[in-house]
């Protein structure tokens, strides 16, 4: 008879702390400890002892068998029984025991080593937990926002016109009147090898052939981050290398200072700007081959800008929505099931919507719930095709899936990529299969719709 899961967890954690204190592990071992001892920190492989649940057929079989027996979900007592068995068996050599401490983990013996399967790698866990902590501090319960502290804590990088891995960036004021800024990333112009002339060629097409232009809207639930935030700088650089694209990262106005529809207006402004820049047009037909892309709130913005583009006759080659932020009044299954489990809570989602939507509006406002009771239809519009990435451990997923359904119902072309074991922010760090496979999807989507 296994003790209730929570008690077992408590016991193990206590044990773990003692071990940590007594043994004071260093270096790799310490990191391994950490990768193992934090909730939600579950990944496909332990980064530090470099063992993985995927190696070889035997292990794969093992894993499937385990999954066939029972879903190793966090609340499953099964896994805790299993852990107890292991503890008995191994007489508590620390590392393997710790390996078992992960809930949702799958373990098997590999020549004395334990294979670990965790969902969130340590790096991602540290990164996102850090954001969560910072965001909790700057978000006030009364709906106001500590912008100064948020800006202080946000890690930023300057534009860099000297090529780094073949990518240059520069900031440009695309609308002086509204002070709208964008950071442009592009393959280094051929003559930029001379560091002293970074401006030469910045405004020439990167290629005589057709190339994609990606307008990127950063995430941050409409309130956080900007176009010079380090995580997004890094992501945009990847998009350049990945797709041979020019990426325009838009520094849109954020809530709660600027509510709906400011972010959409700025996003739209950026698209209009791109459509008038000759150097962004390519191919024999000299056409702007533009994709709208964004994560979280940025995905939401991409959708709404694409709607305006369809209404105004600007041709958009495709939409790429990474964990887009949608919502609605009712509570969905995923919201209830995953509330507070993987970094995100319903409470904070509600806060951000309240901060962004017009005063007094509820979450069935079309900005939040585009296919909800107040949403319009896209049937008549030449709305572009979409690639929608959904993470299975993101509580917003039901709304994202509903969005995909809505597009389908309107007869629009949409491809859904559902990563069951991915969490929010998985695309920020190249440390999971989710990352590589999703990047591959994006690359194919862009190249096949150019």
């Amino acid at each position, binding site marked *: 008879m296994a003790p209730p899961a929570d008690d077992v967890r408590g016991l193990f954690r206590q044990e773990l702390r003692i071990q940590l204190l007594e043994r004071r592990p260093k270096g790799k071992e*310490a990191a391994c400890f950490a990768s193992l001892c934090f909730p939600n920190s579950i990944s496909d492989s332990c980064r530090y002892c470099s063992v993985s649940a995927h190696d070889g057929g035997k292990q794969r079989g093992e894993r499937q068998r385990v999954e066939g027996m029972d879903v190793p979900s966090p609340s499953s007592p099964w896994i805790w029984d299993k852990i107890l068995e292991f503890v008995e068996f191994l007489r508590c050599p620390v590392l393997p025991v710790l390996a078992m401490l992960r809930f949702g983990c799958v373990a098997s013996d590999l020549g004395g080593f334990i294979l670990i399967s965790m969902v969130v790698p340590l790096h991602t866990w540290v990164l996102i937990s850090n954001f969560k902590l910072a965001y909790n501090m700057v978000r*006030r319960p009364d709906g106001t926002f500590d912008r100064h502290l948020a*800006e202080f804590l946000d890690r930023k990088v300057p534009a860099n016109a000297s090529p780094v891995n073949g990518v240059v960036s520069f900031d440009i004021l*695309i609308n002086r009147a509204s002070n709208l800024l964008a950071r442009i990333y592009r393959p280094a112009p051929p003559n930029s090898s001379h560091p002293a002339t970074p401006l030469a060629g910045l405004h020439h097409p990167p290629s005589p052939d057709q190339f994609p232009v990606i307008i990127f809207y950063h995430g941050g639930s409409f309130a956080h981050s900007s176009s010079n935030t380090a*995580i997004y700088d890094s992501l945009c650089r990847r998009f350049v290398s990945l797709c041979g694209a020019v990426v325009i990262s838009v520094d849109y106005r954020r809530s709660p200072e600027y509510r709906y529809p400011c972010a959409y207006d700025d996003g739209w402004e950026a698209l209009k700007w791109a459509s008038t820049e000759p150097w962004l047009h390519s191919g024999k037909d000299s056409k702007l081959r533009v994709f709208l892309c964004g994560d979280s709130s940025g995905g939401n913005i991409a959708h709404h800008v694409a709607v305006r583009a369809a209404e105004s006759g600007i041709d958009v080659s495709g939409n790429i929505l990474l964990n887009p932020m949608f919502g609605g009044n009712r509570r969905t299954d995923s919201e209830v099931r995953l509330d507070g489990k993987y970094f995100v809570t319903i409470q904070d989602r509600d806060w951000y919507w309240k901060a962004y939507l017009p005063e007094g509006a509820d979450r069935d406002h079309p900005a939040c719930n585009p296919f909800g009771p107040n949403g319009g239809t896209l049937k008549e519009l030449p709305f572009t095709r979409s690639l929608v990435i959904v993470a299975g451990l993101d509580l917003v997923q039901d709304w994202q899936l509903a969005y995909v359904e809505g597009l389908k119902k309107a007869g629009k072309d949409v491809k859904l990529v559902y990563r069951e074991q991915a969490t929010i922010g998985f695309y920020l760090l190249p440390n999971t299969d989710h990352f590589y496979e999703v990047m591959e999807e994006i690359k194919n989507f862009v190249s096949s719709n150019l």
Partner: protein
Amino acid sequence: MKREHQEAAGGGDRRGGEGNWYVAAEQEKGKALMGTDDGVDELLAALGYKVRSSDMADVAQKLEQLEMAMGSSAAANDDALLAHLAFDTVHYNPSDLSNWVDNILSELNAPPPLPQPPPPPPPDDPLSLQFDLPPAVTEQYTIGTVDLPDGSPCKPADVDELQPEASTASSGWLISQSGHQPEVAMSLRDRKRLKVCSSPPSSTITADAATAAAAQQVVIVDSQEAGIRLVHALMACAEAVQKENLKAAGAIVKQISVLAASQGGAMRKVAGYFAEALARRIYRPQPPRGMGCSSTVESAALDDMLHHHFYESCPYLKFAHFTANQAILEAFAGFRRVHVVDFGMRQGLQWPALLQALALRQGGPPSFRLTGIGPPQPDNSDALQEVGWKLAQLAKTIRVDFRYRGFVAASLADLDPYMLLGPEADGGGVEDDEPEVVAVNSILELHRLLARPGALEKVLGTIRAVRPVIVTVVEQEANHNGRAFLDRFTEALHYYSTMFDSLEGGASPPAAVEVGGHDQAMAEIYLGRQIYNVVACEGAERTERHETLPQWRARMSRAGFDSVPIGSNAFKQASMLLALFSGGEGYRVEENDGCLTLGWHTRPLIATSAWRAAGDPLSTSASCRTASS
């Protein structure tokens, strides 16, 4: 090997030999696994966070603790904890995740904050620009910008009229005139002056490898085609100069003026200054002394005047003073005898605000000594002393025990530690049971020393010798000291274009337009002289040798200084200060690894950093006091 394992696991066959984005990512991943030489995790470093791989476990554990604490307080519907962390906690260097998390955790473990009555609000103060500060947290001081009593910088103050004037002028200030006035400690008799002549530097070599593959920061504010052509023409001209093809350079420089005329606003002005500097370089390879190449005796007064207009017309110097003062104030917390050595006294614009903050300090103001250093004046006038008198007058009014000394020195390298400290510092007197703590403040001064080999090293040695609790350094955030002329030129072109654009875009509010326009024109001349120096001067004459934060970090750490992070409190207040300039639109304060920068849009233009001698027990204890107060 395990690593291969990992890559096989992460990759699989489908990715073999694909596009180079993947290879790059794989290399990244490999590096992250290996860790770098100093053990900093590269995956997170690429995203702006510095965590040693070996600390990762610790950081994760602490993050978890914090999360649990917050979760439980949220469950209890108790916002006090979050409010405490957001409002009352000063955050330092969030890049350094390990320390940042530690700091927050120690706040959590500290006894819960008692509700404290707000300190008495400063009375209606005609001298200070009031910021909309939150009802303040007690340990945190705030500094406003304060103008000297009469607002004009160079008016000599007469000794005779000083006393009676002071009491009337102070009526609106924070103290009433009671009988018990502390003496102004400075008197004509006591004041010491020392004229030092420049001596040839003793050491000769500075291995000045242009460190840091400095980022080329480009903000394009005017993307019009003619503007681009103008920039290209300027650069073509600079390239010709570098190749010593003066004939071609001369031809291009003439075109530049034509192109510039077609431009408006900032771009035209900037191009004008650069073209002029290029022309001087082309046609007069050996410009005579005093043409702005170095701040010679003749130009010192003019410099001061232009400097003052620069101060008035844009927030850069105010930001510099403000952030440096904040760092000094925090380092002085708890000390009863404090001493600031200012490497560039000029008109003393920085000090009224500090004086006022010290006057409002909890537990009463400390005894404050100021040593101001400035260049010799052309007419041998005693500008330094005049500034000192004004400050003394202010100090007296707000009842801060104040002593002042002015030092005239042609170069900071001529200073020796004993000159700065003087006899009092060693505790010779009876009243000195309390040690004097020293702060050294340098606003836009250190880069000049790079023109003379060994000078900076000597000055840093002098600083170490006076054992300061804090060294505040403000420098232009640019690399105008690269080896190749073209690099310097390009960097300067970007830097000053952005600077001029900010002057244009951040023009004073309508109320001050008449004055503002004049200030702006003079501020442009001030910057124009720097452009001239960077572009047209060489050798010891080229004194505007601005370098970037990473370069200064490397220099300071080589000289045995540790960085002292400037916290979120200073950041917040500096951001508020900016609201005074065109609503803050365009200007941005940013935190950069413990330092604060102020920039225009995303281009940082000026940076404040704070330092202390590595391993100095006094400094360390001071920092502990600050942290625990």
